[in-house]
């Protein structure tokens, strides 16, 4: 009987740990970790290689483009694959940690050809929402861009 209770206790502890694992994250280093992931995203654009950014996007990732078009992960990656950047840069990237989530904001400038084959010359601001997943990996769950009015 003692063993039964021991197993139950172990089960409860395991369940509790799993439920709390998403709450007890973040702290120092989050900003650096997320800033590095933003640089990885930039690198994928610089090299026109969406495979570099694919693992950084959560399955439930939602992108809201500057024109209000909303796309999920698959469509966002397809659009990234069809876009050809000649020049791309991030500026003023800031990351703020909120426990197991982090917000990255910044300016985005790009020139090239967009996914529909039209010339691209854009200056936008972006907000990315990152979440630390149960496996410990940070993934972007939402990205939102807006054009800067001149």
């Amino acid at each position, binding site marked *: 009987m003692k063993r039964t209770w021991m197993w139950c206790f172990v089960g409860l502890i395991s369940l509790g740990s799993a439920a709390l694992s998403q709450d007890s994250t973040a702290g120092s280093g989050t900003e650096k970790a997320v800033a590095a992931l933003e640089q990885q995203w930039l690198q994928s654009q610089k090299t026109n290689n969406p495979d570099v950014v694919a693992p950084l996007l959560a399955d439930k990732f939602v992108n809201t483009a500057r024109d209000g078009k909303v796309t999920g992960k698959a469509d966002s990656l397809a659009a990234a694959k069809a876009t050809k950047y000649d020049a791309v840069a991030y500026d003023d990237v800031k990351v703020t940690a909120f426990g197991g989530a982090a917000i990255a904001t910044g300016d985005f400038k790009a020139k090239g050809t967009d996914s529909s084959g039209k010339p691209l010359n854009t200056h936008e601001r972006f907000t990315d929402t990152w979440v630390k997943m149960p496996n410990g990996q940070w993934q972007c*769950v939402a990205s939102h861009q807006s054009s800067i009015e001149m």
Partner: protein
Amino acid sequence: MTTRGTALVAIVALSCVALSIILHAQGDTGQQIKELQQQSRDAQMKNDASWAQQHLADGFVAGNSWGDWETKDDFIKDLQNKNNKWKSGNISELQVATFGSNTVVSHYTFTYDAELRGTHRARTVICSDTWINDSGTWKTAATHCSMVKGK
């Protein structure tokens, strides 16, 4: 039933209870955020800075549809600015996605008519808000909107 069998049954039963609690909590969270989202817009319409003071996280950032950033202080100052007047504002197509127990992202369309910082803006924007659970209180960590229609 052996002792090990009994323990296994107990663990499976506990897992089911825990899963049920988590799913129920996520449902509640979604509804709670939808209500808070509406409250947030109602407060904005009334220039209610106290609501924002309570429900915007420290470190909050807003990216508005004309490309400006605003901090929590900027946002509250805007609400307190008597020259900013809201004629109308409606939220539609509100969708909520939960990530664990402490993060929610909402997506919605916001149609408004307002005089903001001396400029008349009547437009439809699409917005993404990030909500975080700060010691039991849901607070907005970020909001970002893009114009889809209007001026």
